[in-house]
Structures are given as C-alpha cells and as structure tokens.
C-alpha cells in the first residue's frame, strides 16, 4: 500500500502556466435544506471570479463533518462526509445542510 510521487515533475502542457495567475477569494458559504445530487452547481462568477475556479481550500466548517471539494468535470461544489475517519462518502442527495457554514478560500481567476 504505497503511492509513488515523482517530483520535481514536468506537468502536462495544459496544466502549468496558468496557475501562476491565480487569485484567491475568501467566501462564507451558507448551504441549503436539500443537497442536490452531484453537488451544488457553481461558476466562477458565483465567487466573483471571471473565468475559472481551480480549487477550494477549506477553512473551518460549522456544525458538521464535511469537506468541500470543487469538481471541475461538472462545475460543482461537492461535499464529502468525513464523519468516518476511514472511508469518506459524498453527502446523500436531499440532506439538510441549512445549518452549515463553510469558511473557504477559492483559487481561480
């Protein structure tokens, strides 16, 4: 059970370069009463960015064992339930998250 990491590594051409232009915005997210399947759709404009979201950096989360992740394949904010320290799972659709606030940094431009 091991993972091999090669670094320094020359990344694929579509990865490097643009990251250095990234900016960061800090937001507080208030979730709603019904987590949608596949996560909350978000766009760069949702967070005051212009073009692209790169990733989320979680700060603190109130009232819940959740971990926010940006899914670039569909453009959504997914929440992972971390209540089990072993296997995490995504929050089940329909879950009431209206008491949750997530303090988060968002990289993008």
């Amino acid at each position: 059970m091991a993972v091999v990491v090669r670094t320094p590594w020359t990344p694929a051409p579509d990865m490097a370069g643009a990251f250095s232009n990234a900016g960061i915005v800090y937001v507080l997210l208030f979730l709603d009463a019904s987590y949608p399947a596949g996560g909350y759709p978000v766009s760069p404009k949702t967070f005051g960015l212009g073009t692209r979201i790169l990733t989320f950096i979680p700060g603190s989360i109130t009232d819940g064992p959740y971990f926010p992740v940006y899914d670039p394949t569909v453009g959504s904010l997914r929440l992972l339930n971390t209540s089990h320290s072993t296997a995490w799972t995504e929050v089940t659709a329909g879950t009431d998250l209206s008491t949750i606030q997530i303090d988060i940094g968002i990289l993008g431009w």
Partner: protein
Amino acid sequence: MSWLSDSTENPVGQVLIPPQLRPPATTVVLPGGLDDTAQTLSVVDELLVTQLAVRPVADAAYIAPFWFLGIADDGFPTPLVYPDENVSPATQLRQPTMTQILMVGISDDYMQPIPLPEDENPAILLQRWQPVVTKVMVLGVSDDYVPVPPVDDYITVQAIEDWEAQVPRLQGSVETTEYLPVLIVTPPPAGTAGGFQVLLRGLGLAPVQGALADIGASSIVYALVQFDRSYPLGGYPLSPKALGFTTRALTFLPTAQTVERAQGYFPVYDGVNQKVRLFRDLGAGRWVEPFPGTNLSHISMDVAIVGY
C-alpha cells in the same frame, strides 16, 4: 505565487448585496461635479455605490431593497437614487425576518464612520434589530490608503454602535481604535433557503488572518503520483515532505483533464490525516471512495499541489 500579498490594497467599490455575492466595483456615473471639494482627491465622474440597505414597508414581512449612493468626499452619503417607493409589496423582496444589513464605507474617506442618514430615512435604523446575530464582519473602507484590517472572523470587535464597529488595532507601537462599518449576517432560517448562498468575505484580495492566512505563503508543486495494487482504507499516506513541502500540503489542483487521464478518479488531500484519497462517480452521480484493496496500479495522476 501572485495570489496573495499583504500589501495588496482593497479593490475599490466592493458592494455586497444580500443575500448574494456581487462583483466589485459597482459604479454609477453621475453628471456634474456634485462632490468636488478642495481638500481631497479630485472627484471623478464615477461614484461608488457605498451603501445598500433595506427599508420596510407597511407590512413588516416585506422589505424592499433600495440603494444609497455615497459621494466620495461628502461628509455623509447622499441618497441619490431611490427606487420606486410605490412598488407594491407583491413585487418586493419577501424576507421572513430581517436577515441581513449591510453598509459599506464611503469610497475614499479615511476611516470615516458611516454617518446615519438621519434626515433621510430613519426607518433604516429600525432595521438594525437582529434577533440572532451569529456573525459580525468588519468591512474595510473601499480605497482607504492606510491598511484596512482584513475582513475575517478574527478581528476583535469591542463594540458596535450604530453602524460602526470599534476595532482595536496596533499600528507600530501605538494602540488605536478604529471605527469601521459593519455587516451583520444571520443565517437563513432552516428549510427556507433555496440553493446555497455565498458571502464574499473581505474585499477581494484583502489578506485574511486565521485558518486560511497560511495560504499566502504557499507554492505549487507539480508531481506525478502513481498508485499501487491495493487502495488502503482511508487513502494513501502522503506527507507534505513527500511532495517537497516543509510544513503543510493544502490541496490538489486537479483539472478536468487530470481526472479524465486518471480514468475518472479525483484526488482529495486529507490534510488532517495527511493522506491522498481518491473518489470516483460510479454512475449514480455520487462520489465514493474506492473499496480497500482496489487495484489502482494502472492509474497515474499528473497533478499540481498547493502547499508550503
């Protein structure tokens, strides 16, 4: 990295409109030099929207938003535009309670407390009532030339009087108290919020203290990550040092192409346990972590990682 600099000034004209985020630099063009005075910067033709408030109508359950436009160097924000005051309640924003009040600074005043529009709309004051105040944020004045405290949860607000917060600050060895406009937010009532809400914290690039402040020292490492024949329960141990960081790995920067090349697997860095976890949608739209023992030796991931 260019994304944080402690010397970065706040962008001008940040305006928050409840309950959603709005981009910065909302400007309004005014004809004429209404706000020119001799003692301050020359006034351009663009004025910033400096206040947004809500105003009650006859039925307290209905609240109509309206704009206040502040003039740059006037002693008080002048109400330049009132939306139609005759809007019927049916078309107005319905709020179960007063959930959000916002006032922001005057564009280029130096730490001027927000004056009360006493003679214009005293009803605004009535709306300061908050049944459950859960969070108080301090908003910096938009383009003040002295450093504005970062907007975050970690400033100690000594008191809030009227529209301003008294914030103790230490500038060099001098202790001062500054007066800043405040934003008071209560969360949406359970079960009533539609979709999630975003509150833009701070003024764009304003540095943030506390849990997220360390991001400013971060850098990017590019790595090729290759997995093995047996996914371990809870993910693969992966220390920051293994990635070339000294202290902390923050997050992966996976792109859609990264995920595609990794056959749908998405990497998540679990900073608490210092592990890389993988997730994949198995067709139901919901991410799941691989079962322990899953053979991932055919997966390699070309990915960037943020850390320091």
